[in-house]
């Protein structure tokens, strides 16, 4: 069964895509001139940071997850439970996650003022409202740009079961567009054809690029650069095809994460983080619960809870959590009011997300909604605040501009600031 969208706009870009790119190499220089020693050191430390986003597409209900209101008119049937973080209660639909709460912080005061899937997704993934004529990069591309080591053969941004489009990287160029693993498997054709030696392959690629360069003189090159870069990316992937070997998970791991797609995607994400991929996006869907909200949440969160919690605990055990930021987000929350179809509708004005790992104060809570969850009554924040917070968490100064194309771009909305109370 699928949920009905209340608006024709669709939230996920499902083109499997990855781009080749502009000669962004030169642009990804972080420009150390004019910085203090300390800042420069911080920048360098940030180079090893990684980010994982769990994207719950459709808009998970904050009332059935991070901000339950049991016993109120709008709270629905579920109870709240205590967690491993003293004083923090979350919905009983997340019992495993509750055990990891000491690694996670909650932001309960989000007001993005946006109830449209596509626009909400844009705000949450770029930190800004859509502006006609100017496209900001999505956070996967942004953090690939800021954090991925220059000249790394690894893709900086991989999407697992979450779709993605080459358009996400905008002016940061194809190098930072998502590599989308469709069907939870490695890309095909990763190995060089038997008929070809490495030497031959190198030479023909070089020739390919010379022929292209000759053609591109005196022509518009926006598209041709994308095409050329895609061949470089292919070569880079071939050199590191080991990261895509998803055949070696132990039975025990498969058991712990679950045999469903999402469990497998979390395991894949764990491997990608271990192999050093800078940004990984993992998708889980079917949260657009305009009808049967509670049954859907039992079912979907029942699938989500354990692998998500296991992922956090595995990263912690392996020492990866101290330099990996984890964000669990979606395009908006769901209405406190329960509609006539026992559903909850779109709700951008008072909702929550969870984040944890590097730079985040485990167990912290920022923001508060009123008793029925209809309004933020303390520490209201929007996409801008969240972006400042992500930047700061991975050790980057979010108030500085960066110069991807020689033009200064604010990293995050200058009218907002980081949510300091959840930063470590």
């Amino acid at each position, binding site marked *: 069964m699928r949920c009905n969208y209340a608006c024709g706009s669709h939230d996920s870009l499902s083109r499997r895509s990855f781009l080749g790119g502009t000669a962004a190499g030169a642009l990804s220089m972080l420009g150390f001139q004019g910085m203090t020693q300390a800042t420069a050191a911080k920048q360098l430390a940030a180079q090893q940071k990684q980010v994982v986003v769990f994207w719950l597409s459709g808009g998970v209900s904050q009332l059935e997850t991070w901000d339950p209101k049991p016993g109120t008119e709008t709270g629905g049937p579920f109870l709240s439970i205590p967690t491993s973080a003293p004083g923090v209660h979350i919905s009983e639909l997340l019992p495993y996650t509750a055990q990891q709460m000491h690694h996670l912080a909650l932001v309960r005061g989000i007001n993005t003022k946006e109830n449209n899937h596509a626009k909400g997704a844009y705000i949450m993934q770029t930190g800004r409202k859509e502006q006609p004529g100017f496209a900001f990069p999505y956070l996967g591309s942004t953090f690939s740009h800021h954090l991925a080591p220059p000249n790394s053969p690894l893709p900086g941004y991989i999407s697992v079961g979450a779709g993605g489009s080459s358009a996400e990287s905008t002016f940061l160029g194809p190098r930072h567009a998502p590599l989308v693993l469709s069907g939870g498997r490695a890309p095909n054709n990763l190995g060089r054809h038997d008929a070809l030696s490495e030497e*031959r392959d190198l030479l023909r690629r070089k020739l390919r690029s010379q022929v292209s360069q000759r053609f591109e003189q005196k022509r518009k090159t926006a598209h*041709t650069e994308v095409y050329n870069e895609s061949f470089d990316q292919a070569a880079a992937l071939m050199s590191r095809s080991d990261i895509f070997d998803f055949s070696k998970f132990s039975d025990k791991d498969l058991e712990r994460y679950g045999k469903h797609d999402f469990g497998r995607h979390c395991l894949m994400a764990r491997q990608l983080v271990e192999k050093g991929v800078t940004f990984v996006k993992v998708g889980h869907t079917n949260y657009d619960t305009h009808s049967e909200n509670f049954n859907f949440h039992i079912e979907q969160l029942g699938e989500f809870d354990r692998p998500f919690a296991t992922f956090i605990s595995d990263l912690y055990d392996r020492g990866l959590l101290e330099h990996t930021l984890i964000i669990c987000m979606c395009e908006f929350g769901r209405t406190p009011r329960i509609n006539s179809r026992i559903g909850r509708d779109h709700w951008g004005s008072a909702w929550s997300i969870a984040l944890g790992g590097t730079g985040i104060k485990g167990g912290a809570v920022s923001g508060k909604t009123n008793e029925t969850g209809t309004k933020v009554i303390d520490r209201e924040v929007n996409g801008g605040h969240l972006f400042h917070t992500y930047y700061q968490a991975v050790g980057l100064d979010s108030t500085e501009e960066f110069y991807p194309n020689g033009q200064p771009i604010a990293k995050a909305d200058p009218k907002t600031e980081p949510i300091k109370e959840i930063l470590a």
Partner: protein
Amino acid sequence: MFRPNMRVYVSLLIVFSCPTLAPHLVCANSTTKADEPLVASKPTLPVARRISSLIDEQIQSGTKDYAKLASPVCSDAEFVRRVYLDLTGRIPTVTQTRAFLDDNHPDKRAALVDQLLETPEYARHISQRLDVMLMERLRKKYINVTLWEEYLRDAVAENKPLDQLVREILAADGSGKGQQAEARFYLARDGDVNELTRDISRIFLGADLTCAQCHDHPEVADWKQDHYYGISAFLVRSFVFTDKKKKQTVFAEKAEGEVKYESVFEVRDKTSKGPETTLPVVFNGPKVAEPAFKKGEEYNVKPAKDVRPVPKYSRRAQLGHALTSSQNRRFARTMANRLWAMVMGRGIVHPLDADHSDNPPSHPELLELLTDEFTASGYDLKWYLRELVLSKTYQRSSSNELFASKSDQELSDAQFAHAILKPLTPEQFSRSVLEATGQAEVYRQSLKDKLSEAALRKNLVGYERQFVSLFGGLPGEPVEGFETTADQSLYLSNNGSIQGILSPRSGNTADRVLKIPADQPEQIAEELYLSVLSRRPDATETQEVAELLAGKTGATRNNMVSDLVWALMMSSEFRFNH
């Protein structure tokens, strides 16, 4: 807080529908025998006006300093490749390229265009472009896709007026013998009224009314909920019906049913006066009035269990007429704009489904002219495409000395002062790869007397399908603009089906190149470049080929030639129609 009070369906939508794509196919070499005749058809000789020079005047007057900014008219080599790709869906064979380059007739471009418009490949290619425009690569549902493709191909081959084609498709219910294929438009969308409303508005009216389903469009003042439900009203009584006895699925209709709508904003703000309804209407045209029947007399065949009802009056039957009527200018305008974008690389209104007052056309008078003339020609596809490709605007070079010194703004694509690079569609790409490697020629030679467009295509269609699955985007979301994926570049680099057609085989490109004596490097380089890039090499390129092959013999030489074919074929020069 509000409660959406309407049923809505999840559907994948593209924000910009783009009729890019097309396919195309095959052909026989101009030097081979005539192809089997297609449907009985008389070539339509252009009797309508010549408008290509009017197009150029309008384009020139649309940009200050146009003459200073415009690229020169393209070379013969650029032209022959471009027009083959646009009209037949593939690069020319090496023989065809040579013949055109060596032809000294002053009007050889017009002559080539006329010749191409009469080939079976033209019918295949343009029908595939129309297919993608209409169906956006939706998968098979109820209707045999091959029959649908043949129906479109025959329509293009006999130059059926485009408005008639659309009327036939929108009148089809899939029940009649011989017209089942036409019902694919409705049935592939499962007869879903919202999906059909959205697609009909986008494809035929240049209006993405998606947001007008639940309320007046929030960003486009011109588009109202009334427009959305005016179209829906034609379809609201229709439903998919499966006749268990006949084992046939058709698009049936009832005699009753009205659209009901109210704005979710008004519901939220408690200002709603309750649900409204409307008679069928296309945009701001006249409402389609309907006859009244006495109660109990509405049907020719009354509804009953397992029986397909047949009402005396069909609302849906009015849709094609209302849509293509002279009272609805949007249809002709949208079609004229879509076909323009197909060959010019960008719409005069762009995006193609955003035709409203806040997004004016780059050349308003030109779009008016094209709309009028296309209508006056009787929606004559062949005539229209011919006029477009004979214009200087179409024949500008894609290279321009000024790109280095001027900003994208100053030399924007919307000025049509240079040819826009058009990514090859998956079908064009696959067919051109088969032509460049000479694999198509190998098949032609093996078919001998049995050679025809259809027979050759049978040999090539496997490649076409591979390319469509890799480069064609998702069903319902064809690729917009230009994107690459890891899957694509890895396929082009490593897949055996590409590697397998590079090596010498009797009659293919590597074989022809290798047969040229090693002491004739100019001929070798020319054969390579003409075969793959449809042009002669310059001195540097000739030199490069000579150096790469110098002293190489046997297997090493074979490999080098195969690698050269691959390098040229994977270059950006090949990937785009320039």
